[in-house]
Structures are given as structure tokens and as C-alpha cells.
């Protein structure tokens, strides 16, 4: 606020402040009468990540109703999956939550493995590598959310720092899988190939450098007056609402709901690691920020333990009916070529049945509900998208807030268009 003007002492009555040279604000004045006004935000708006539209009704600066409309990024994931063989679906899963594709790969592979009844036979090394790449993806997911959230509130430096660190991880995954974002690295029964030779030392180096970046961001944001003013006490969600609306992941945990699939229903080898699940106490935007920041630290703990314990062994199941032959054989022998062709074009024969398999994705419980009719293609392949409930609850959270509060509230929900609209 500007310093009080000299006129304040002269005129009794309402307190006045001077903005620039003009007398402008009368802070004690009652709200001016205003008519409800419809206001469109999005679908193409810098703060509406991906594409989402909000039809608001505002009175002055205050929101009275908010109608959030999704679907602009609908790519028919389910319809396409019903016409693709089990292996061909992996590239589609990459594009669900495109800032943590590995987690989607792992979640989908585990669902099909349960249907096949091979989920307990996945080699240990493959499970450890799945944890490694999954936690790396979780870190990139949270870094994107925190960085973009801070940038939208005017803090550009932490955004650049966090995206720089995210790029280190992307480069590592690119070296591993060949693609920066759309990895498709996981396969039913294991992985496409083993870790690269220098993966572990490089990851250790990146984690060390990342610690410094996170300290910087913590210092720049956590006690930053401007940042806190726009985060504290804004967009409060109660624990009861979180449950009734199906909020999971960092958004659910920010309300105090201590539900983390990795802890409550350990899958892969998560029960062998020592890590904590951070929970919030207020359920506001700052809690969502703080939970994500702490989860990055916890993910780094898991990564270090997984690297220490990483066992040797095969990286995929030794079953020619399920696992693809190695590329070197595919290109050099007719038998492997035919096996490859059969698995890709004809599909793995998954027994008829239904399964709901759930893992902890970047945004919460990532569920795959798959119905198989015994052929090489799924009858139904449904994703339970964790960010749909978080976006849905905005219609309840936003009324009563100001227009400017939409940006941090929406940012901390971390809507990922690809996952929300599928």
C-alpha cells in the first residue's frame, strides 16, 4: 500500500490512501451495488492449463457461481483402447497424465498383469525399476504443478528453477526410453529393456543437484509474503468433502485425509521402503503446495533406497506368450519376428474377467477398470482419472472467492487435460 497522503490529516472521515498521484480507494466504503455479470474464462486462457472453460457469474470481483466445463481435450481413450491390442494401449496411456507418463504405464501394466494372473511373477528387478521410474515421474509431476502455480502468481524464478531440474529428469528418462515425454517404456510382464549402464550414478547426481534447487524454491516461496497471501486460507476443502467427492493424492492429503495407495495398499515393492506420507491440516492452497513439496522429498528418499537395493536379474517375465522378444532377435530371426507380430497385432490372450487395479498416480488414485472377454483386445478399458474429482469440486470451492483466487486454486488442483478429458 502507498503511504498515506497529506490530505488524510486535513480531512476527517473515511480513511484514504493515495495510489500514484490520484486519490483512488476509500477502504471503509460499503460495497458498491453491482449486478451479476457472466464471465467466461477459457477454454483458451493462460491460467487454464490444457483447455478448460469456466463460466462464472460474478458480482463485482466476487464469484457467485462457477460452472467448470471439461472435455476440450477428449481423445476417445476408451474407444480407441477397445480397438487396440493390449500392448498397443501403452502409447495411449502415456498421453493421459503427460507430465508423469511412467506412472500411467505402470498402472496400466499392473492391471493387465492382474487379469493374466502374473502379477506375483514379475521379476524383482522389473518391480524396482518400475518404482524408480514411477517416483521420477511423480517428482516431475509435482515440479510442474508447483512451478506453474508459482509462475501464475508472478514468481517466475522458481518456475525456471523447477523446470530446469525437471529437464534433468526428462533427459534421464529420454536416455532410458528414447522419448522425452511419451516413454511407453513399460510392457506387460516387465519392461522394454533394462536400465542404461549409467542410469543409477546419473540419478544420484541429479538428486544431489535437485536438493539445492528445492532449497532455493522453498526459500523463494514458502515464506514469501505475496505467495502466502494468495495461498493461505484460499480454497479450503474439508476432509469429509474430500472423501465424499473422491479426492485422492496431494489434494486429498492436503485436507488431512491420510490416504496414499503406496502406504495403505502397497504394490510393487513399496512395502520395503521407508517413507512418510505428508498430510495437511487446513486443506487450503498452501497445504496443497506444502504437501507436494514434501512429497518430492519423500520420493527422493524412495529413489535412494531403491537404488541401494536394486537387485540384479531379468527385467521382464520369461514367457513368450506375454513378453515381447528382445529387439535384437526380432530383427534377426524369423521366429522372434513372428512372435513379435502376433503379440502386437493379434494381442496377448488375456482371460475373460474384470479387474480394478489402482496405483498412486501423480494426482492421486489412478485406477484402471478393465473388462476382458478373452480376446487380444480389451472389452472395456476405463481409467479412473484422479484429477476429475479435483476439478469437479471447484464448482463448490470457487463461489465466494475472488476472480484472482481462481488462478492459485485451479493451479493447485493440478488439472492435467490429458487425464481429465481422456
Amino acid at each position, binding site marked *: 500500500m502507498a503511504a498515506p497522503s497529506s490530505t488524510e490529516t486535513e480531512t476527517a472521515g473515511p480513511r484514504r490512501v493515495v495510489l500514484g498521484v490520484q486519490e483512488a480507494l476509500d477502504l471503509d466504503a460499503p460495497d458498491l451495488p453491482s449486478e451479476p455479470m457472466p464471465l467466461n474464462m477459457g477454454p483458451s486462457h493462460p491460467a487454464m492449463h490444457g483447455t478448460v472453460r469456466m463460466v462464472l457469474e460474478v458480482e463485482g470481483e466476487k464469484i457467485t457461481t462457477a460452472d467448470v*466445463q*471439461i*472435455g476440450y481435450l*477428449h481423445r*476417445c481413450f*476408451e*474407444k*480407441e483402447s*477397445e*480397438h487396440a491390442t493390449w500392448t498397443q494401449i501403452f502409447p495411449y496411456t502415456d498421453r493421459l497424465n503427460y507430465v508423469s507418463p511412467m506412472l500411467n504405464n505402470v498402472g496400466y501394466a499392473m492391471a493387465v498383469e*492382474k*487379469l493374466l*494372473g502374473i502379477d506375483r511373477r514379475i521379476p524383482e528387478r522389473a518391480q524396482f525399476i518400475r518404482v524408480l521410474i514411477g517416483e521420477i515421474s511423480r517428482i516431475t509431476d509435482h515440479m510442474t504443478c508447483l512451478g506453474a502455480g508459482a509462475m501464475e502468481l508472478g514468481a517466475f524464478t522458481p518456475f525456471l528453477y523447477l523446470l530446469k531440474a525437471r529437464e534433468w529428469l526428462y533427459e534421464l528418462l529420454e536416455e532410458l526410453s528414447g522419448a522425452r515425454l511419451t516413454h511407453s517404456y513399460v510392457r506387460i510382464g516387465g519392461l522394454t529393456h533394462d536400465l542404461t549402464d549409467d542410469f543409477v550414478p546419473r540419478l544420484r547426481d541429479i538428486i544431489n543437484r535437485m536438493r539445492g534447487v528445492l532449497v532455493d524454491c522453498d526459500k523463494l516461496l514458502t515464506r514469501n509474503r505475496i505467495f502466502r497471501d494468495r495461498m493461505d486460507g484460499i480454497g479450503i476443502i474439508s476432509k*469429509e*468433502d474430500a*472423501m*465424499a*467427492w*473422491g*479426492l485422492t493424492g496431494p489434494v486429498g492429503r492436503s485436507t488431512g*485425509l491420510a*490416504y496414499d495407495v503406496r502406504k*495403505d*495398499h502397497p504394490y510393487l515393492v513399496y512395502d520395503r521402503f521407508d517413507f512418510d506420507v505428508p498430510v495437511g491440516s487446513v486443506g487450503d492452497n498452501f497445504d496443497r503446495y506444502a504437501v507436494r513439496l514434501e512429497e518430492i522429498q519423500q520420493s527422493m528418499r524412495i529413489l535412494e533406497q531403491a537404488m541401494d537395493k536394486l537387485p540384479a536379474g531379468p527385467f521382464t517375465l520369461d514367457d513368450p506368450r506375454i513378453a515381447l522378444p528382445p529387439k535384437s532377435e526380432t530383427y534377426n530371426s524369423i521366429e522372434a519376428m513372428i512372435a513379435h507380430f502376433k503379440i502386437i497385432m493379434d494381442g496377448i490372450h488375456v482371460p475373460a*474377467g*474384470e*479387474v*480394478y487395479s489402482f496405483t498412486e498416480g501423480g494426482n492421486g*488414485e489412478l*485406477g484402471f*477398470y478393465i*473388462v476382458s472377454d478373452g480376446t487380444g483386445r480389451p*472389452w*472395456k478399458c*476405463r481409467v*479412473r482419472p484422479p484429477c*476429475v*474429482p479435483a*476439478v*469437479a*469440486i471447484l464448482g*463448490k470451492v470457487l463461489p465466494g472467492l475472488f476472480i484472482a483466487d481462481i488462478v492459485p486454486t485451479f493451479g493447485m488442483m493440478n488439472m492435467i487435460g490429458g487425464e481429465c*478429458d*481422456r
Partner: protein
Amino acid sequence: MAQLVLDRLALHFTGGEIEETGSQHGNEWARIHRKSWVRVCTFLRDDPVTDMKMFIDLTCVDRFSREPRFDVVLHVYSVARKHRVRLYAGVALEDPTLDTLVSVWPGANWFEREAFDLYGVRFTGHPDLRRILMYPEFVGHPLRKDYPKEKRQPLVRRTPGSVD
């Protein structure tokens, strides 16, 4: 683990509300009569033993050659007791309606809109049953098995007589 939930349902509902129960791949499921859908769900939420306070997922399956053709599939979870259950409700093509669960778990709102949008199941009593993923002008329900994958409905109309 969630067998407890099924036992509880069998104990409490004896009038044919629970049509069938089972367990596959570690997922316990129960088929609920369409008319008792909301009553059973409310019980699951409020009963201290089942304690299904958390809404997880609601979707639909098109069984195509079977009667009733559609299954509305619900997944709910108990945070305190760490068990979950899957519920089905059969919905026929001739009368694709089911009572809404928005009053039981408000989170069902968007999921029911999606099931309506993609499968055409109407949820009676739903406060805002609009399309959610497709655009309002869209004709039909794309995830039904008789909707061809290649079918296109472009929003931008070609002018009559123009060459495509």
C-alpha cells in the same frame, strides 16, 4: 478383506436387493437390484462396519449381447477400514434409467454425467445431467458398442455443394 462388506450386505438385505455377489482378482463385487440402488449405497456409506465414505469411481459397461445390456459400475472405498467394493446395477436398453447417487456421494455428479454422455444411461434426480466430454450438439453415445469408431460428426458444417 472386503468379504466382510458382502457378508454385511447379505445380512442386512434379504428381500432380493442383492442379486449376486462374488470375488475376482481380489475385487469383491455385488450386483444390486436397480430399484434398491440408492438404498444399498446409503447403507454402505452410513453403516459403521462398511463405512464406505469415499467415492472412487462410477462408470458403465456395455455388455451388448446380454440382457440387461448396460451395467453401471460403482467403486467405493472405506479410508478407515481400508476395504473397497464394486457394485453393479443392470440397466436395460429400453429403459436406460437409474436413480442418481449425487445425494449419497456428491462426487458422483461428474461421473454420472460422463456415463450419461458416453453410454446414454439417464440418472433420474441428477441435478445437472448435461454432456460432459462431448459437445452439446453431439448425436448418440459414442462408447456404446454399436457406435462405429470411424463415425465422424464434425461441428463445422460443410456448405452444401462444396467438395469435401
